[in-house]
């Protein structure tokens, strides 16, 4: 069994008076892909966002319980959120390139972290784009606008941008849901490669994608963690009837 990278203990989250997550306790191992599945509104994206405190940006959110990343509670007052988000990067459903060149997009994070040396930045940009398997496609047009890339390329560039600040954990919120099958396949291959060095947590509505890319799968329903286990077990012989009904499409 691999080391535990993220551990949540009785994590409960309220949007105002509404409880969105109910006492979630979960161990996410390092350098594996963990997928969150469940119907819309089940809390999976909310839970994902608690892992790098993205919910702090939403008004009226109240969190109780603990989220430990490398054994440190990220909800402690002393925690520097900027450093936390550097360590726990995030890729969103819709790619969100800045209206800048490809180079500047990827160099953005290192720059705000104080790296201004041109050759160092060039090295980081090249390495990050290579890790995101997009270097060959963009190496001759690094100064072109990132907005001119295709949707799939934009998403991989955004992954490169996340990698540029050297995170240890990458959170992905439906990273391929707006992409065509070929771009989706590239993102999935990329996830396979990335898990050698990073801990990946992915939210997906695509059941087959969860089955293909993840080592572990967690099924959420109405803010509760219903079942969490090895993906190969969940998709062949789930323990809970509810999980079975959801993954076989007999839900509700």
């Amino acid at each position, binding site marked *: 069994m691999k080391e535990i990278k993220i551990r949540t203990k009785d994590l409960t989250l309220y949007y105002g008076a509404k409880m969105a997550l109910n006492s979630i306790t979960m161990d996410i191992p390092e350098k594996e892909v963990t997928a969150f599945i469940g119907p819309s509104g089940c809390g999976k994206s909310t839970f994902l966002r608690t892992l790098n405190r993205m919910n702090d940006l939403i008004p009226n959110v109240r969190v109780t319980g603990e989220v430990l990343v490398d054994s440190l509670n990220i909800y402690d007052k002393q925690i520097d959120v900027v450093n936390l988000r550097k360590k726990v990067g995030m890729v969103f459903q819709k790619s969100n390139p800045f209206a800048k060149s490809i180079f500047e997009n990827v160099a953005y994070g290192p720059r705000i972290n104080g790296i201004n040396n041109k050759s160092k930045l060039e090295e980081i940009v090249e390495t990050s784009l290579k890790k995101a398997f997009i270097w060959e496609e963009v190496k001759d047009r690094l100064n072109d606008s990132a907005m001119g890339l295709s949707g799939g390329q934009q998403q991989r560039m955004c992954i490169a941008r996340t990698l540029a600040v050297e995170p240890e954990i990458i959170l992905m919120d439906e990273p391929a849901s707006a992409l065509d099958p070929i771009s989706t396949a590239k993102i999935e291959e990329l996830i396979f490669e990335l898990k050698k060095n990073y801990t990946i947590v992915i939210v997906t509505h695509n059941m087959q994608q969860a089955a293909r890319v993840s080592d572990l799968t967690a099924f959420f329903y109405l803010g509760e963690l219903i079942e969490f286990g090895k993906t190969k077990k969940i998709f062949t012989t789930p323990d809970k009837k509810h999980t079975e009904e959801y*993954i076989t499409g*007999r839900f509700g």
Partner: protein
Amino acid sequence: MERHFELELEKLNKRLLKMGSLVYDQVHNALDALLACNIELAQQVIDTDNKVDKLDVKIDKLCQRIFALTQPVATDLRLIMSALKMNNDLERLGDLAVNISEKIEGISEYKEILTELHVDELANMADLIVKDVVNILHTRNTTFVKDIFTSASAIEEKVQSVSARILDEMMHKTEVIVVATNLMIILTQIDRIAGYSTNIAESIVFIVEGRMIKHKKAFSHGENSDNGSEAAPESEATPESNDNP
């Protein structure tokens, strides 16, 4: 979408049951024909085999379509995987009925040997095991699976004892050698009927409970489980044993 998928699974289940029922009739008629040395009924079994073959292809194609178009998981995945296997096992049971039917003419001149050597008892046991397993396929009640294993062990033991007696007869009465050889071949088919029946029972357990019990000698189905029924399907996995008449 969901409704359509449910209909496909329902169709698959219906076809499997139809296959089970058709194959049971084939085995039943073949064994009836054997005990009565009824050449006409034996020929009917041989002629009906093409129906089994056609249904076999239909079920395979349906499984292929469901796999390709719906990417089944969990219980649906287990059902379709097992449907493919059970369909194959049922089709083989149909072949065994044909094999038996083809040898009946060769023993008709000395049919008293059937009762003398208790082949009739063995035929009834084989008939019952197929009937029972087809019944479990219908009800999916896995509590009766261990009875299939017990019956298969009993059939295997009985085949061995009857075979020994046939060999004995052959040594003492040269005039029965041809008949006895045909009878030995029929006994082999009956032994395999038990083996394929246990295969099907194992698949049903996999569908219902998600447990793979094949090759697990420790499955609790009586004292003789270690050398009993579960050894039979393994030995039958070789192509030559299946093609052998």
